[in-house]
């Protein structure tokens, strides 16, 4: 779909982007980099942006207040620079036994249980090349930062335009 060059700030209201991981572990910091870029990009004015080391129960309140949530995380396993977008199914988050940090389905399930709302949530996973100590992304991951930004823009625009439900399953850019 076509993404407008400038999303109206009004359309961004109700969206939440959470970049999470360890920014001192090279590519594990991709979530933080993306969150920082979104916060500084005027296209995304009005979007709430959070940088976190991990997903915790306290985020359930933020999630419940949003209409669209985009979680950005590093993935070890897929080829470096691979972008996978998955729609979170909250039904998958009720049977696990975590304690004080949790996976995306658990977070959405908790928002639903505690605050009665489970918004549309997508996880953008980026394949990593390095998780060594360091504050810089590897070249392979650095190259796809703009692509990730475009994915977020498409998700925000799609939600704002109230078009059919967002990305489902897994896709690769």
């Amino acid at each position: 779909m076509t993404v407008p060059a400038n999303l109206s700030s009004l359309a961004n209201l109700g969206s939440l982007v959470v970049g999470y991981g360890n920014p001192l572990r090279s590519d594990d910091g991709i979530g933080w980099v993306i969150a920082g870029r979104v916060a500084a990009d005027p296209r995304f004015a009005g979007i709430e942006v959070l940088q976190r080391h991990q997903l915790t129960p306290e985020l359930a309140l933020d999630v419940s207040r949003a209409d669209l949530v985009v979680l950005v995380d590093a993935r070890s396993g897929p080829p470096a620079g691979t972008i996978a977008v998955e729609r979170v199914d909250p039904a998958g988050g009720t049977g696990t036994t975590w304690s004080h940090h949790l996976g995306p389905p658990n977070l959405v399930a908790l928002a639903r249980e505690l605050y009665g709302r489970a918004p549309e949530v997508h996880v953008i996973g980026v394949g990593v090349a390095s998780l060594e100590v360091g504050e810089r992304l590897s070249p392979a991951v650095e190259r796809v930062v703009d692509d990730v930004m475009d994915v977020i823009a498409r998700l925000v625009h799609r939600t704002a335009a109230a078009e059919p439900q967002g990305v489902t399953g897994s896709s690769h850019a």
Partner: protein
Amino acid sequence: MTSQIVIDPITRIEGHSKITIHLDDAGEVTDAQFHVTQFRGFERIVQGRPIHEMPSIMARICGICPVSHLIASSKACDQILAVEPPPTGADLRRVMNLAQMVQSNALSFFHLSSPDLLFGFDADPAKRNIIGVAQANPQLARDGVGVRRFGQQIIEWLGGKRIHPAWVVPGGVDAPLAEETRDRILSTIPEAIAAIERALAWYKSSILQWEEEASTFGDFRSAFMGLVDQDGNIEYYDGSLRVMDADGHLLADRIDPRGYQDYLGEAVEPWSYLKSTYWKVLGYPDGVYRVGPLARLIVAGQAGTPRADIELDEFRRRLGRVPSSSFHYHYARLIDTLCAAERIEELLRGPDILSPRVRSFAGINSNEGIGVSEAPRGTLIHHYRVDDDGIVEWANLVIATGHNNLAMNRSVLQVAKRYVKSAHLEEPMLNRVEAVIRCFDPCLSCSTHALGEMPLQIQLIGPDGALLDELMR
């Protein structure tokens, strides 16, 4: 034939550990050991580093309670600089330390322990988590999220981020408090206090159902230690050390905590990386004492805030002046959290809290510094020696979990003796051995892990090292 039962790892605590239970020929428990199996080495890592780096480095010890290390480290650096932070700088440090107390206590009570308390220690492990709590008692779960979020937000608003903020520095804090931030924090306090009081009401209404656990979860006579202020009330940031015995008599009072080495010994056992601290007069290993929320409530005359004082009076009416069971850490932790929230409000309403004078500057004026404060889990001591250029030559850290190490071992032994009835591994024993450790909320490192991500492994090992039995959760 003697045997061992090994529980490895222990779950829903901060860090990595395992428990070994020793059986005699008749299958009776003879000993139990709580092993901390991770090595950190911060006391060596910092050697050769300049003193101004110490607070930031030391904060990396822990991702749950970095503020506690930041505070104690900065206080040690204050002494090396030979400065006192301006009063407002000290008060702002107090606010952040109290916020840390709130968020960490909330994590322990609501996220880690409330599933056991709500569902019982023999409930299905798949149910004993915060989703289960959210389904069975959503208000309790919401309050847990709310109280922890309250503490985390204060840390983030003051320090710019909720984990590893660099705002607390030698000499005070890095920037004054903005009026908008103060008002924003103040606006969140009523709901936080209401949430803590709801949790207290729920706990007190349920307390009778845990009588069995209270009588076996580390229920023994020991001393207790904590900081008190000049009036003898709970002190979190400064003050003097007070030690009380099991009968309520003071073993020591008005001790300058910087003289800790005169009173506290540190023993090292080959089976654990966690040092065991003991009261020197009683020797090792008899010098067992406990620190943390339960100890703070016991050694203090009063909490020192209106609502917490009322709760402390009731606590003492219910349990006596010196409750002996470690199970009561849970109850104490809630009152401790209430006290911390009230203190935050008192400090923020102080007339000088917005003063721009928040930091003292100086060079190296002393070769030694000791910083002591109360962390969520108990008294925390940072002790540094530096050369004339401020390069660290030696460091010693006495962590709250180390103070409690002997007590945790004794508690595990008591539970094991009560619940291990044969050489076979059974869930009730496993659940309670883990749960008694959780009472102390040991923080073994910044690492966090969750039930489900790390398999719970119990091994029964014979005297020849052969694996006799094994359970995986």
